[in-house]
């Protein structure tokens, strides 16, 4: 194959990846988009195998073996993973992209002739710089995602880990990283390469541990972006168009998602990264109020909802934890059968990753045209008779609009209190992740439904 044809084939595969993302602009086109992405991948793999066709049968067998092992693991995971575990799965996948970037860079350093970037000991400096950037970002993505995974999976506490001189240590490691990159790029020293990798591994852990569980949507998006930049760095080393285009796409995708998530929390990107926020410790310390709350039963809730003409459901992370999405959809169906208009309102940072709630509702067979984003539904609350808040808290807190001293002041919230009745399904009166009391609990038109989200919703369904 001529080099031009090869470049064009990689370009085609890059364009197919763009179309795969373009397809996601609506659920109808998204499925076709996914197939276009798969064909892009097939083209890239076939092209590579054609240009570097191994002559030995054993090499082909090794390649087949690699695909078989990885493909089987991937397929089994993709088929069996519960939708509620999607955030940790995505974090795990990010870590694999980072790991692959490190491994490919290490391979390129050992056998540069196979990648057409020179001979061992005589790799062009430009390639070394690209390689070092790829390996540094890849290594940070790898360990950072592993930490994010363990937090999301509940293997370690979601609480932020903060210690003295943390920022100083990070800054020091950052400087060390730059020095090592310069050393490596000027000497092609293997020791410099591995030191660089180790420092990046450590930095990846240190960047993610101070960030609390509730800030995970930002972390996951950020690591998504990193995995893209790592891929692009390796793409420059290999001179591969498909990899460069993909890296740029994924990098900007993750950056945009991080931006949307930060905006959803009204926090600057840096305040999230610097961490220390989102601890569950603060919640326990929150003032226990003696103010009276109105408590209701499932029967009361069912009665009020059945007689409403419009009900808006606001799901949050608690719904995912309790796996209440199916019970919730049954409740919605019962209400619709009783002639009630039902809609779902989703806050951008509800759950542990962007779009988390939408996937869970889709899994429970909720039609996506009943599910609305914050901007689209916020004006409808005054017309709603009942709002059913299930497992959400801070995203409905009026303090964000009314109390300038509140830590969440300025954060966009779902204005549920404008509805006729607000029903809060919570396990207790405890405050949310931000550790802020929600004054909504004590209002006259609020009814608290204490209990597990799934059990409570099931009881309401029974009473309907």
């Amino acid at each position, binding site marked *: 194959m001529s080099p031009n044809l090869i470049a064009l084939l990689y370009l085609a595969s890059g364009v197919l990846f*763009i179309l795969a*993302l*373009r397809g*996601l602009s609506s*659920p109808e086109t*998204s499925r076709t988009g*996914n197939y276009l*992405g798969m064909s892009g*991948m097939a083209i890239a793999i076939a092209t*590579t*195998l054609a240009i*570097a066709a*191994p002559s030995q049968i054993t*090499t082909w067998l090794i*390649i087949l073996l*690699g*695909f078989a*092992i*990885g*493909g*089987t*693991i*991937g397929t089994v995971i993709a088929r069996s*993973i519960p939708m509620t575990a*999607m955030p940790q*799965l995505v974090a795990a*996948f990010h870590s*694999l*992209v980072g790991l*692959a970037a490190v*491994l*490919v860079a290490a*391979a*390129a350093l050992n*056998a540069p002739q196979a990648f057409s970037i020179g001979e*061992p000991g005589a790799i062009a400096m*430009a390639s070394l710089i690209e390689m070092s950037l790829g390996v540094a970002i890849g290594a940070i993505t790898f360990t950072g995602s592993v930490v994010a995974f363990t937090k999301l999976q509940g293997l370690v506490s979601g609480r932020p880990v903060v210690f003295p001189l943390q920022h100083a240590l990070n800054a020091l490691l950052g400087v060390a990283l730059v020095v090592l990159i310069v050393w490596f790029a000027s000497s092609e020293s293997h020791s410099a390469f591995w030191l660089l990798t180790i420092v990046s591994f450590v930095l990846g852990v240190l960047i993610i541990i101070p960030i609390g569980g509730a800030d995970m949507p930002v972390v996951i998006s950020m690591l*998504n972006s990193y995995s*893209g930049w790592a*891929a692009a760095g*390796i*793409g420059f080393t*290999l001179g591969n168009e*498909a*990899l*460069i*285009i*993909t890296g740029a*796409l994924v990098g*900007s995708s*993750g950056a*945009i998602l991080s*931006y*949307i998530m930060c905006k959803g929390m009204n926090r600057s990107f840096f305040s999230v990264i610097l961490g220390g926020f989102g601890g569950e410790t603060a919640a326990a310390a929150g003032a226990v109020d003696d103010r009276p709350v109105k408590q209701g039963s499932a029967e009361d809730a069912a009665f009020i909802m059945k007689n409403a003409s419009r009900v808006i459901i606001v799901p949050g992370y608690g719904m995912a934890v309790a796996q209440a999405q199916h019970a919730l959809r049954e409740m919605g169906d019962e209400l619709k059968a009783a002639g009630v208009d039902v809609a779902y309102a989703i806050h951008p940072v509800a759950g542990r990753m*962007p779009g988390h709630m*939408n996937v869970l509702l889709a*899994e429970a067979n909720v*039609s*996506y045209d009943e599910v609305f984003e914050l*901007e689209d539904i916020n004006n409808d609350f005054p017309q709603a008779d009942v709002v059913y808040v299930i497992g959400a808290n801070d995203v409905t807190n009026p303090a964000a609009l009314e109390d300038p001293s509140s830590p969440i002041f300025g954060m966009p919230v779902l204005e549920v209190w404008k509805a006729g009745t607000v029903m809060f399904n919570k396990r207790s009166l405890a405050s949310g992740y931000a550790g802020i009391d929600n004054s909504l609990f004590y209002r006259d038109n609020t009814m608290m439904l204490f209990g597990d989200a799934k059990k409570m919703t099931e009881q309401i369904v029974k009473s309907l």
Partner: protein
Amino acid sequence: MTHRFYPRAIGWAVMAALLLTLAFPETAFAAADIETDPFVTRFSMFVMAIFVGYYVVWSVTPALHTPLMSVTNAISSVIVVGALLAVGIEGASLFEGSANGTAKTFGFIALVVAAVNIFGGFLVTQRMLAMYKRKERD
């Protein structure tokens, strides 16, 4: 929606990169003066792809942000092309101590890891997208 921040940030990043390239031309332009260095062509492609990505991703509906992340995982794994080049090294076997053998071994592990992501990423995206349904109107 106000999202003017990113084009500006990208613009500055591009300008900074261009200035760096002009300041250290010997690293970027290793080849002759007359022809464009392949790096410049690839860098142009990279910058354009960032802009394409910017506009394409803003048009993704928020309801599909989770599939967006899983499909980006899948496509990032096109890094498998690097793994294939390393595995394809001839005259060395896996787990051999030589430089080529080491490269081949790293390549093999990278191949397995990337294959997990390719299959896992596309299939889990497909599984999610199949769930997004509109209610049948009669």
